[in-house]
């Protein structure tokens, strides 16, 4: 990295050289400010006003919207469902992604071919995924019941997406199917960056497979795993389209994750102020969680 140094010792005026780096990022920052920061700030602003479709006056109401939001009885359910959904998806995708990445990390013919095939679930549009899985899960026309029915593992003709006991898991399976390739690819990339000599040396010393995994693979994947888990958690937590297209949050709120709840408050009940309050609160909460998470991992890596 080149440190920007003025040719003449400390001139008072900004030299072109000094602002040059900022010029390079200016277009990105402008677009960012326009499309993200401005609506974000406006969203936060709306949360302090009474903003519904039912009246065109929008008076300032301070923290009223927040108060109302926290008194909504459904909120507890929504949080529980959202956390289960996000954490469950992340863990499922991580484990599956790791296993597959390890399987694909060996050199064998056609490895690239399989890797390309396994990425298919991730690249399809969410609405297409929803169409497919709605059909697969249908109690009469669906393939899942056709396969599992004879096995006798589950109740006959289970209505996967319509039974509150199974709906969330069913939706999560579809989500994990969709999301694991991302983990697989990231971990594969990380695995390929580990020098084989490390493994050789350890094998010479008599290390077993699981020891290799625990003491060489995992530590070296730390960066990749941290970044991927943050991206995956945020992405899953805020994922709207798939669940909406599969169940619209039902049945009986069993899949009502926060993004759907917010959408419902804004576009069905037309209570924009309250929706904005919900969104702001959870955005702030998540930001703090992520900071804590990232910082903890960074601290720990320094100890190693």
């Amino acid at each position: 990295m080149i440190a920007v140094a003025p040719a003449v010792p400390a001139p008072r005026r900004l030299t072109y050289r000094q602002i040059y780096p900022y010029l390079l990022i200016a277009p990105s920052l402008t677009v960012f400010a326009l499309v993200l920061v401005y609506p974000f700030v406006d969203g936060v602003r709306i949360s302090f006003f009474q903003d519904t479709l039912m009246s065109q006056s929008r008076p300032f109401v301070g923290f009223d919207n927040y108060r109302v939001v926290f008194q909504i009885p459904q909120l507890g359910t929504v949080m529980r469902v959202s956390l289960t959904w996000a954490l469950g998806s992340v863990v499922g995708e991580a484990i599956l992604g790791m296993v597959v990445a390890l399987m694909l990390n060996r050199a064998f013919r056609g490895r690239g071919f399989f890797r390309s095939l396994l990425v298919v679930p991730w690249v399809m549009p969410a609405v297409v995924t929803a169409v497919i899985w709605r059909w697969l899960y249908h109690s009469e026309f669906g393939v899942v019941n056709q396969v599992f029915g004879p096995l006798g593992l589950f109740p006959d003709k289970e209505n996967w997406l319509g039974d509150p006991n199974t709906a969330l898991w069913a939706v999560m399976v579809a989500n994990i199917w969709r999301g694991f390739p991302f983990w697989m690819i990231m971990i594969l990339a990380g695995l390929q960056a580990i020098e084989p000599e490390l493994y050789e040396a350890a094998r010479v010393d008599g290390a077993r497979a699981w020891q290799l995994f625990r003491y060489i693979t995992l530590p070296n994947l730390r960066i990749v795993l941290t970044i991927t888990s943050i991206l995956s958690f945020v992405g899953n937590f805020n994922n709207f389209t798939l669940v909406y297209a599969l169940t619209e949050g039902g049945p009986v709120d069993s899949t009502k994750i926060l993004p759907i709840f917010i959408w419902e408050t804004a576009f069905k009940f037309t209570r924009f102020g309250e929706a904005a309050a919900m969104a702001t609160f959870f955005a702030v909460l998540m930001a703090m969680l992520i900071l804590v998470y990232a910082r903890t991992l960074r601290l720990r890596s320094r100890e190693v």
Partner: protein
Amino acid sequence: MTARLQRRGVAWLLNGTTVVFTALVLFPFYWLLASSLETPDQLFRIPAVLVPTAPTFDNFDRLLHSSFPHWFQNSAVIASATTLLALTLAALAAYSFSRFTFRGNRELTTMLLFVQLFPVAVVVIPLFILWTNLRLTNTYWSLIVTYLVFGLPISTWLLIGFFNAVPVELEEAAMIDGASRLGALWRVTLPLCVPGLAATAIYVFLLAWNEYFFALTFMNSTDMRTIPVGLTSFFAEHSVDWGLVMAGSVVASLPVVILFGLLSRYFVQGLTSGAVKG
């Protein structure tokens, strides 16, 4: 001898598992393909039939005569434009982060991850008002710029890693020979970072191609819809044209599947060099 046989056995087992697993993962996509070749009444058979008995391209034929080709064009143009712009802006920004240390570097890098923190449902109305004021609703630009923003953070982050890996000396050599900084970037650094560019391109293209909510909100006319929104319009209040839905879903998926199939090697390579080396 037995050790080698054992390793062979393990290899076979792993290969077999890989094949079976891949087949399972791909099954839903296969089912989609099969369904798209069936007429609606064949689709509704109980029990579901896995291999179409009388495959027909009727659905695709009807798809071509619906508004779907418009939607395909819209999605293609928007996704391509977004990708090109994202590559450009991200390259510039990443170059800046990589080659210079300046105030705000670390904070900006951290901000990259907080892009998706705000739920779409709340961001969409202020953004819609913004585009309305700029008179960009129902145009490609409203979506291109929006997707650009969501794709920039990862793109920049990926490319930073790549640029870090390219020795500065190469650029300096080019500049001594008379190239400008950007010229050196274009002629020396970027060619060495093709995997990273490919990774970025794929990621952004996917984002733009698959997105639903903004596309729904910013586009009004039937002709300006993107594919995901268009697919939803096949679901009417009292009837669903399943043939069109299936065929449309297949056509919606094929380009990105093929694109990724071709470029996934670069994607992995891109992440290897870029992401991991940090």
